[in-house]
């Protein structure tokens, strides 16, 4: 039979091939990369043995420097050294200017593009490009440590990141040449790392206080399923804000003039050092040097606690909301896991222990736990683990549309499990109206003004009817990355309009493409070679998956159906090693089409198995 031929060695890829996949924690302050090696997830060190890469990028005339060296030059070259770039991801210039917490970089918006750009000595840089420099360094580190090409990466984002911030992160990965397997929420990654490590089940609260963001997620762990029940947080609250309050206190106490960006950076550094010192001391001496003058002041733990107490209380309110959204009480919680460097602050631990009435877990290094969880998920998604666990995540913020009177109609409420699709019908409000403006919003408040505007588009060509006669169905779809796409259709005529939501201040696909080209030295050749390789890898993947499927469930097909599939498969094998991407792509699609019925039957089979595995008696 034809099927036997195609399984012969040499004809197809090696079955169960191990692929290299990495998890990246792209943090506000530090970034890490981790991978599963010999069944164990661990973070990867640079050649000096350092695991943490400071998320600092410095542009000089000659080169772009990332990490520790860049961090050290932050106060001598403040305008060309970008610190905490994550805070700028997916943000508009207006939002940045309205927020005093941002350090004063020189930013502007180019004509016809609403993405803020940093003015540096080597030209304008967007937050996306700057982040991609950090990702490139981590990718290189992984390639040299693991010894091979990286097939895919899971990149973590704060659970509370909105659509614009997620899209920006994904764009940065694309610029760095990484295939994103998934954007994973940071607290979910941490829960994964803990859950897989300890085997604990039940209700877990993940309290994640990083450099610039705060998230709290509540998960239910049961038999390998990690189900997120609720999430809450604040994308502009973190350890940087602790530094900020200390800095303000210093400026006030020592009467420092703070016009100069270098001095600002210096004070922030002193504040951060003082904060870290107070993690295991009761007081610390801060010395500020300017020109020849030196000034000293003592910061006690007591003063520090008073300074940051309101900030920590803010996080407790978010914990309360997360509990309520999950319909749980404090007593229902089995474990609290602390994540993020800022949870080293003693007051944070005390207040959390007090609130949940139990001691939080700090067994895994809070700096590394997110990257470790991301690496585990990457290993599952790339297909290296077959029995894998399952993550069910949620959307952090409600999604809706602007309706009459500047109000927001929620289409998908927050904490809805993804993937999700929801449709809602709207109608025209004027006689003869032929177009409808669709304004997509994200947020919890009722007024458009208080929510975040994600995108606007228009559905045109609606035939003139009396007001209220048209039926316009708007569909929201959120994929497993938490990214939204919206489509609209007029039902009586079938006129449709569809967009992948790209926030008004995000980069367009064209801009990304151009940047990608620019970043490649021999652009044209590289792109062609890359496309060919991509298609070949994809072909191998599809063939391997199909062979496994046939081995397992070949009996779901008739002899004739099998023959048809193997005919198309042989066609693909014939073109696979040629030097052209297009024919490979064409035959992959053809095979895809030929196996659709087979795939459907396999899924029905596994659904029936899942359902029949349970009689009513199995349930408590």
């Amino acid at each position, binding site marked *: 039979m034809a099927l036997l031929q195609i399984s012969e060695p040499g004809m197809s890829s090696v079955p169960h091939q191990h692929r290299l996949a990495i998890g990246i924690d792209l943090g506000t302050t530090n970034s890490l990369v981790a991978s599963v090696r010999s069944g164990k997830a661990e973070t990867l060190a640079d050649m000096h043995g350092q695991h943490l890469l400071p998320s600092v990028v410095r542009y000089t005339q000659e080169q772009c420097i990332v990490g520790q060296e860049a961090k050290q030059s932050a106060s001598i070259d403040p305008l060309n050294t970008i610190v905490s770039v994550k805070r700028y991801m997916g943000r508009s210039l207006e939002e940045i200017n309205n927020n005093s917490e941002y350090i004063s970089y020189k930013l502007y918006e180019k004509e016809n593009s609403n993405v803020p750009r940093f003015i540096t000595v080597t030209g304008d840089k967007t937050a996306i490009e700057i982040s991609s420099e950090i990702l490139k360094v981590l990718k290189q580190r992984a390639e040299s440590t693991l010894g091979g090409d990286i097939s895919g990466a899971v990149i973590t984002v704060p659970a509370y990141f909105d659509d614009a911030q997620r899209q920006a992160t994904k764009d940065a990965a694309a610029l760095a040449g990484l295939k994103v*397997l*998934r954007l994973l929420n940071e607290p979910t990654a941490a829960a994964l790392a803990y859950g897989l490590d300890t085997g604990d089940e039940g209700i877990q609260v993940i309290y994640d206080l990083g450099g610039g963001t705060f998230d709290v997620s509540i998960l239910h762990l*049961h038999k390998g*399923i990690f*189900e997120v029940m609720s999430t809450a947080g*604040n994308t502009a609250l973190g350890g940087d804000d602790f530094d900020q309050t200390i800095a303000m206190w210093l400026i006030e106490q020592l009467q420092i003039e703070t016009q100069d960006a270098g001095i600002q950076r210096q004070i922030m550094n002193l504040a951060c050092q003082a904060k870290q010192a107070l993690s295991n001391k009761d007081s610390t001496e801060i010395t500020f040097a300017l020109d020849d003058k030196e000034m000293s002041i003592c910061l006690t733990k007591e003063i520090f606690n008073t300074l940051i107490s309101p900030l920590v209380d803010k996080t407790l*309110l*978010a914990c*309360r*909301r997360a509990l*309520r959204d999950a319909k749980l009480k404090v007593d229902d919680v089995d474990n609290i896991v602390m994540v993020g460097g800022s949870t080293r602050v003693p007051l944070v631990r005390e207040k959390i222990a007090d609130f949940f009435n139990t001691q939080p877990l700090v067994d895994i290094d809070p700096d590394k736990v997110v990257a470790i969880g991301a690496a585990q998920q990457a290993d*599952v*998604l*790339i*297909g290296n683990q077959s029995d*894998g666990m*399952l*993550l*069910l995540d949620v959307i952090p913020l409600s999604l809706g549309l602007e309706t009459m009177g500047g109000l927001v109609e929620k289409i998908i409420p927050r904490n*809805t*499990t*993804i*993937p*999700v*699709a*929801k449709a809602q019908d709207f109608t025209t409000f004027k006689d003869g109206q032929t177009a409808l403006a669709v304004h997509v919003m994200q947020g919890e408040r009722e007024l458009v003004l208080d929510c975040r505007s994600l995108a606007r588009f228009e559905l045109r060509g609606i035939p003139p009817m009396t007001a209220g006669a048209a039926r316009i169905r708007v569909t929201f*779809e959120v*994929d*497993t990355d938490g990214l939204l796409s919206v489509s609209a259709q007029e039902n009586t005529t079938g006129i449709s309009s569809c967009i992948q939501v790209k926030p008004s201040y995000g980069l367009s696909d064209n801009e990304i493409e151009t940047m990608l080209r620019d970043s490649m030295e021999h652009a044209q050749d590289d792109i062609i070679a890359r496309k060919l390789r991509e298609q070949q890898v994809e072909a191998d*993947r*599809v063939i391997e*998956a*199909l062979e496994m499927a046939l081995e397992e469930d070949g009996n779901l097909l008739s002899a004739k159906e099998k023959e048809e599939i193997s005919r198309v498969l042989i066609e693909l094998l014939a073109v696979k090693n040629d030097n052209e991407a297009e024919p490979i792509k064409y035959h*992959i699609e053809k*095979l*895809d*089409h030929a*196996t*659709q019925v087979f*795939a*459907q039957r396999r*899924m029905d089979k*596994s*659904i029936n*198995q*899942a*359902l029949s*595995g*349970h009689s*009513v008696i199995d*349930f*408590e």
Partner: protein
Amino acid sequence: MDKDYFQLFNLQVGYAIEMQQLKQLFRELQKVVHPDHFSHTSEAQRRMAMQKATQINDAYQTLSDPVKRAYYLLSYYGVVREGERTHQDTQFLMEQMELREALDAARCAEDPLPVLQDLQTQVRERMQYLMQGLEQLFTEHSVESLQKAADDSDKLRFLQRLDEECQALEDELLGII
């Protein structure tokens, strides 16, 4: 071709639902259809997994919510409703007004939280009562009982919204953003 939500979970059609069972079936199903298990397969399969997982999420959310479940059953039995019917039921109209006033009163009370909690308990008790009634009405599913079920579903929806407003007010009072 598409299964209805009850078939999807292999459950008997009806308003009464064993939540634990539904939850467990939901997890079992996601275990086999979730797109994460198909990330290394072909695009068509990934798309199919995505659709299936979306459908199961939707079915689960519909069946696990008392109001959505009621409306789903009404459409399942083909009960046609003309938009949002205003209630002829004067008694319920009075009740709505009273409850709204009670919410406003809670907002202005000197110590609003306990007043609010009382109101919420009251609202939830009424919801429970309506839900018990709906179980019977849907079991019967005669023309008359379904009409009554439709009316009661509207009432239940009003109460659910009021309950959400109570929550929102509590958030506001506690300073939860």
